[in-house]
């Protein structure tokens, strides 16, 4: 296999040495050598993908399984008081590498790390409007979903047809930032 320009591709495929903890045919997990905490793991696809949305279905599912397995492992070996799983898609979300990474970070009292998510009051109308919009969009991705306030009666076939139409989701916007 040719060495590529992407450091993480090389780490994931073993072209570059790493402190590897886990590997299967889709995913590699290594110790972060600049960790948030000891045993901070970087979990990445062997295939070069920039963000979560670009992973094939089987890989996205495998990330879930690997997240669970690595969490079990860390709990067993380090007995931390908590554990965060963190993904950043896009520079604005904190993505630093051009290669998709899922972070698995053991947590301890007083470790100086903050993954708190503030909760705020929502404007009911905004949430309702967004909910209606999302339900329509979800039906294109998951045609068998049922929602009570469905206005249009579309058949599964009709929804599958709509799903084939190109969507205006510009994922390239994010990946271009790393080129």
């Amino acid at each position: 296999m040719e060495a590529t320009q992407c450091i993480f591709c090389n780490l994931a495929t073993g072209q570059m040495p790493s402190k590897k903890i886990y590997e299967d045919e889709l995913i590699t997990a290594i110790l972060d050598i600049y960790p948030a905490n000891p045993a901070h793991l970087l979990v990445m696809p062997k295939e070069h993908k920039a963000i979560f949305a670009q992973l094939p279905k089987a890989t996205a599912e495998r990330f879930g399984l690997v997240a669970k397995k690595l969490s079990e492992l860390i709990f067993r070996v380090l007995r931390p008081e908590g554990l965060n799983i963190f993904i950043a898609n896009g520079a604005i979300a904190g993505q630093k590498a051009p290669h998709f990474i899922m972070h698995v970070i053991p947590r301890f009292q007083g470790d100086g790390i903050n993954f708190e998510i503030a909760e705020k009051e929502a404007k009911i109308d905004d949430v309702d409007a967004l909910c209606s919009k999302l339900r329509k969009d979800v039906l294109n991705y998951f045609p068998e979903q049922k929602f009570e306030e469905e206005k249009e009666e579309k058949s599964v076939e009709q929804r599958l047809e709509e799903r084939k139409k190109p969507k205006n989701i510009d994922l390239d916007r994010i990946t271009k930032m790393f080129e």
Partner: protein
Amino acid sequence: MTCLICSLIEKKQKKIYEDDEIIAFLNPTPAVHGHTLVAPKRHLQIITQLEDKTVEKMFFVSQQLSSLLYDAVGAEGTNIIVQNGVVAGQKHAHFLINIIPRSKDDGMSFEWAQKQIPEDNMNKIQEALQATEAKEEKKEAVAEEKKKEEPKGADDYLIKQLRRLP
């Protein structure tokens, strides 16, 4: 049981996805417009308690919903965050995946300082994790032949802590 998440699930509040095992809905007290929660229908606390099939599905659904959301709210990025344990930010004793749309100047930041760990310690950690993983793989192979029992929690202490949450 007065689990807020369980009651939101029961009422199907602001639901945008549902199947036999999992459900996704808009957070009624969102960090930002579009903050979505993906949860197992069963009242489980942390990731290690989920069945393999369920956690795989949760990640796939989170992936699809994060693409959708990104478009629906005009986000420039998204965060996917899991908090296991109070110290990790967990607020409800019910496992959740947070999908958070991000934009410029939204006032959120999930950054961390890098810690210096001596090479020696890093190697010890690597060895410990590798050794235990090898042991677990062996155990799994053996267990597959016998009838599987409820896995003993290496994380029982964490679950007990979460059960004390109001």
